[in-house]
């Protein structure tokens, strides 16, 4: 199970962004986050990290595949939508409540869902999903496979405390990738 700290990290990460913005311009995440969210993005105490070096796993984030299609706004939005959706599922499945209230989990999930809805309204991804574009489907498949690997790792490392640390660090890496993607999307002109 993922540590709750990862949940708090994601919550503050999303809170530091402009999720609640009603501006028509797509501005999901701040390129640079505030101090609180950044602190939570840092891994657990280093002793845990050093002890967990043997438990590391390369989940193969498809950065290069996405970067090749980054020039296309539709593909970038599709990748963004898929990542947000997979994160939602990841936290819904593997986040352990711990000492925290379940409201925090709900808030994170609600924030993720809001972002998903916003992206869909901007790009009409529902229509795009129905259109079954090969390139977009390929990208979605790669992202799904990426998160599938994370899911499997957590399933296999249920008793290992290092699994949460490893996934936390991987989620941070994914978040930075999303930040870069949204930063690029924000620089693009809105569709007429």
């Amino acid at each position: 199970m993922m540590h709750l700290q990862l949940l708090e990290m994601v919550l503050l990460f999303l809170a530091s962004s402009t999720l609640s913005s009603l501006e028509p311009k797509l501005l999901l995440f701040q390129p640079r986050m505030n101090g609180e969210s950044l602190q939570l993005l840092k891994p657990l105490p280093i002793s845990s990290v050093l002890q967990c070096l043997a438990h590391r796993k390369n989940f193969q984030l498809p950065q290069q595949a996405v970067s090749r299609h980054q020039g296309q706004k539709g593909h970038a939005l599709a990748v963004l939508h898929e990542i947000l959706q997979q994160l939602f599922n990841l936290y819904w499945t593997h986040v352990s409540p711990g000492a925290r209230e379940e409201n925090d989990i709900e808030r994170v999930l609600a924030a993720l869902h809001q972002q998903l809805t916003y992206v869909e309204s901007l790009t009409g991804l529902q229509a795009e999903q129905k259109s079954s574009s090969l390139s977009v489907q390929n990208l979605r498949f790669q992202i799904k496979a990426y998160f599938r690997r994370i899911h499997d790792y957590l399933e296999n490392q249920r008793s290992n405390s290092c699994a949460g640390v490893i996934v936390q660090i991987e989620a941070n890496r994914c978040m930075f990738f999303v930040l870069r993607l949204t930063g690029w999307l924000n620089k693009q002109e809105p569709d007429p």
Partner: protein
Amino acid sequence: MKQRRKAEPSTGHCELQQQTLRGGGRASANYSGCESRGRTYRLTRMLSNRAFSTVSFCNLCLALCMILQFGSPSAFVAATEETYEKVTEYPEESCTVNLILRNFRLVVSLELENKSLPPTHFTFWSTMMSETEAPKVLENCRNITEPSCDVTDKWNGAHETYVLIIVIYRGDSMPSYCDSSVMDIDIRPEPPEFEIIGFVDHINVTVKFPPVTPKIYGESIWKVLGSKSFFIEERAGKNMKMHNPKMDNTTGNFTYVLRDLLPKTNYCVSVYFKAAKMEDTIKSPFKCTLLPPGQEAGLSESTTVGIIAVCFITMSTISFIILLKRIGCICLKNSFPNALNLHNILYWIFPEVPPSEAVDKLEIIPTNKKKKVWNYDYGDESDSDEEEVPKASATGYTTHGLMGRLPHPASDSSANPQEAQLEEDSAAEESDEAGARAGAMAEHPTEAEVGSGLRPSEDPSSPYEKKERGIQDSFPGDDSSSVNGPGDKVIFNVNLNSVFLRALHDDPEEASEVLSLAEDTGHLDEAPHRTESGLLTAGSDSTQLPQPGISSQVLWTENESSETTDSSDSDADLGDGYIMR
């Protein structure tokens, strides 16, 4: 007794056999074999000893070399045998690892909490969390004395979590280690070097950047830090202003101008990169400069001084002029005496043209040819007996009667005695005419014209200027003007001192009065009298001259009686106090 002692196989056995041989003969053969084996043993032993010595000597030499190279035996041991697993067996030590951007290089810096025993050297290990490879030693940071390591060219993945393991050596003591994980968001960028140059109203801030865009994590520094991460802070007292120039592909020295500054003001400037976390931002020390005074300030001062000086000089000049004026040195009033009054000098030079006067031409018709019609000479003459001494009137004037008439407008002003003669004859014939003519024959026939007025300054004896005026000949029944035609005019000069003048007015009553006066004095002259407007006859005493300037018509009547006797009958009393001659 024989005793075998177990001795060394090489020597002891052979010595026992040698003693036995001394006791017998059988051991001799055995002794020789033993002796050869001993020799061999001894030789082998000697060789092994030498080899061992050689090896030991080599090891010793090698150890010495290693000691000289690494400084301590423990380092040698660590360099050769230390592995990551080994490192993890060292005791852990608390430390703080900072990821610093120094001179546009990514540097990992270590801060130990235990400062009791200073470390001698360090070794840096690192790995990425996203990879499964074991931590590796950073070759450029192996056994270094400084607690910092340049990882610019070692780390090429942005947004990666790097794990650092630093082995701390303290002499011969057991090494320890500390570890940490860092990300790009942990970067603490140190401020670059800069210079400031102050001017009157602006400051040039020159920031020193490398000639080539530096890269960290394999990407441009501006992409990692952000193009809006560089700030320039401007302070003046309590006032602070932030400048955030955009830096995309800035290379080389970068100059930024702080504008709209106040002269003669002390400004302090600081530069820094804004870190992802505010507490990680490192600001440069302030550099201050006092701006010089502007030309506007200096100009205003000099302008003020100049204006004040000009005003002072102007006021002084005005005051001096006023003082001189009051004293009387300048701007004197013209209070010259009349003698020096030169205002009329022009009048003297260019006398004013007398106003136009109503000039009436007067034609004097001599009434008595024989007699001296015109005789102003009241001296002793032959006619004086005939003449009465003119009686002085109450006014003191004496009168002589003269008759004349207004000339015909187109008539010639000249007169001749012939005309006078004819006039006389005609006058005798025209006794019944309504008008009376007054004429006089002058020795010097001239046509007298009396101006509308005489100025006091004029010489009364001077001849009148002849002025023609369209005076209609109003003599009734003047059809017989053939007698009194243009040729019947007499021109004469009249000495005003000897005549009485009276102005004729347009009033017909006055004229009739005059005329009546002329009729009343008809006996004065045998010649027919004709009364005309504007014609006066007078034979009465007249001792009063009319006032000058009064338009007057000279009318003289001369009667015989006046020549003979200047009785009062010869003087025409005009009834208004004038007695005309």
